[in-house]
């Protein structure tokens, strides 16, 4: 019986591949949107994730960066810097705002850097130099590619024009893109003299960041201090609520679509065998054996489709950002494994109804085939 299952499946390789491609298409959709979701999720927290201080200090009541506003008096930075166990404090100013680049307007994280504060600046430059003078800005290279604004061009933040002197990489996402400007310029825009937004605190070697964060909260009035992991968790949660959830919803819709495609393919596969199954039943094969054979067929087609999708995901998807630079795609093995489990469950579920219908076939119909 299993020989029949295998041979009847592989007898028409074209038909088998067409079925597998249908399933693969559905899986590729899911993998693609999952990769977008993973990529955007990582990119939304790209700035804090790459800067990675041991502790983030901010205004009391604030716990993240995305869409947040924080002010901390400058003397508090000095106080924290003098605390035992603190290696270094790097203050930044920070503004969420719309920037105007040519005809394009977009939402951005604008980070104001003190002179020589590369600790909080771009972690990778693809062109140009660091900020040295007032009125200079470093923008993401992807933004430059998308808007056509390059080195020496101007862009506007609120009512102030800046000249592009450097292009950073890894700082672009569709939800938020990160720009770096001089601290003083941003201070003027915000009229926030004597304050910082966040303090990036690095601890001495061997100091527990969690304990130090507690100590800062206890000893410095009206500030919040979180370890990097806590801060990222908060930031990611808020970012997810605001934008990534839309992508997650799209991923879910695609997953449901994939389930329907797999179920339909399984349905067609099983229903095409109706005539032969009537003959097989007439010859004396019992229903459980037919059930297992049909499930095996569905499982094999789904596996074939899944393998095609995985090959596509691993070898093609990584090149998509070359064509569409604003996309950040991450295909993780964990996601592929999860998809594999889902694919198996979906395939079996999709085959259950048609298999049940086929098992109820009257074997006497073999006389009318």
């Amino acid at each position: 019986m299993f020989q029949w299952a295998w041979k009847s499946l592989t007898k028409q390789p074209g038909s088998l591949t067409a079925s597998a491609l249908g399933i693969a298409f559905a899986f590729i959709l899911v993998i693609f949107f999952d990769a977008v979701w993973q990529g955007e999720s990582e990119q939304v927290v790209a700035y804090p994730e790459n800067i990675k201080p041991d502790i983030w200090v901010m205004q009391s009541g604030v716990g993240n960066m995305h869409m947040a506003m924080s002010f901390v008096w400058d003397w508090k930075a000095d106080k924290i810097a003098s605390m035992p166990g603190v290696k270094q404090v790097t203050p930044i100013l920070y503004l969420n705002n719309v920037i105007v680049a040519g005809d394009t307007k977009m939402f951005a994280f604008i980070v104001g850097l003190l002179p020589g504060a590369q600790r909080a600046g771009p972690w990778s430059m693809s062109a140009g130099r660091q900020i040295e003078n007032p009125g200079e800005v470093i923008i993401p290279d992807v933004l430059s590619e998308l808007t056509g604004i390059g080195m020496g061009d101007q862009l506007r933040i609120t009512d102030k024009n800046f000249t592009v002197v450097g292009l950073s990489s890894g700082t672009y996402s569709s939800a938020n893109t990160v720009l770096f400007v001089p601290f003083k310029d941003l201070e003027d825009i915000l009229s926030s003299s004597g304050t910082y937004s966040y303090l990036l605190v690095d601890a001495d070697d061997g100091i527990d960041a969690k304990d130090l964060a507690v100590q800062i909260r206890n000893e410095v009035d009206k500030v919040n201090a979180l370890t990097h992991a806590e801060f990222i968790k908060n930031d990611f949660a808020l970012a997810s609520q605001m934008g990534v959830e839309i992508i997650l919803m799209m991923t879910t819709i695609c997953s449901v679509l994939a389930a329907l495609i797999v179920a339909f393919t399984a349905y067609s596969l099983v229903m095409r065998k109706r005539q032969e199954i009537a003959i097989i039943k007439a010859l004396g094969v019992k229903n459980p054996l037919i059930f297992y054979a049909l499930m095996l067929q569905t499982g094999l087609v789904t596996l074939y489709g899944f393998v095609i999708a995985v090959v596509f995901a691993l070898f093609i998807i990584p090149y998509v950002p070359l064509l569409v630079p604003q996309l950040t795609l991450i295909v993780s093995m964990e996601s592929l494994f999860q998809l594999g489990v889902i694919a198996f469950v979906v395939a079996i579920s999709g085959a259950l109804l048609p298999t049940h219908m086929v098992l109820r076939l009257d074997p006497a119909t073999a006389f009318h085939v």
Partner: protein
Amino acid sequence: MTSPILSAKHISKYYGSGHTKVRAVNDVSLEIQPGELVLIMGPSGSGKTTLLSMLGGLLKASEGSIEIEGINITQLKEAALPNIRALKIGFIFQAFNLLEALTVEENILFPAQLRKHKANSAKQRADELIQQLKLEHRRFALPQTLSGGEKQRVAIARALINEPGLILADEPTGNLDSQTGQEVMMILHDIARDHGYAVVMVTHDPRVEDIADRIMWLEDGALHDRKLEAHQWTHDPVCGMRVDEWKADIKTEYKEKTYIFCSQGCKQRFEKNPVQYVSHSKRDESSR
């Protein structure tokens, strides 16, 4: 008298109920002995296939009992019937019904998988059947590459692989040309006569009548014996099939006597070795 392979008593099949109740088969009884070839004939829609389906455990009878090798299949649960079909009955279909993805050998061996611990003997049996039915050169061919006659020979081999006592054939010559149909009829005739299988055949083909031991006529759901009409017919000396002397145009002369055949195949076989067939043609003379 040996005990019957198949015994059907007062079987009926109804469809619908009340005013819409239709009797497809009505109070049919028959017994088939080993080695017997029985034809079931009748007009279209008379219930022949319904009857055959019930005899083969494919369809539940509304009334009556059917025993195959002493097992009352009408009392068996649905789940037990596949075993009866696999081991006690061989099916031959008009449309051959071979499994398209399997080779000739695999098709023949397919029902053998349903027997336990018989793999080696099944292979040996398949080899014998392949040889007996002249399918050696087609052993690894797929059904789509076979002629109609070859397909039906494969179907016959498949029906015989588990050595069931009963063969049920539904219009086995219906999709074949006359010569191929006659060859298939001869195979069925031989397996009944030489190997002791009971063969029940539903057919419209009047040429088959003369190789049958009994002819049953099914009309309006009821079954009757039908007498053979002997006069005005002669017999093909090779296959024994009845041939209309007045209409036959396949003839040959041997020792100043005219012999009439049902097909060119029989004529050729006769001409190769007439002596073998002349001694068997007494029936001809008696019928003249």
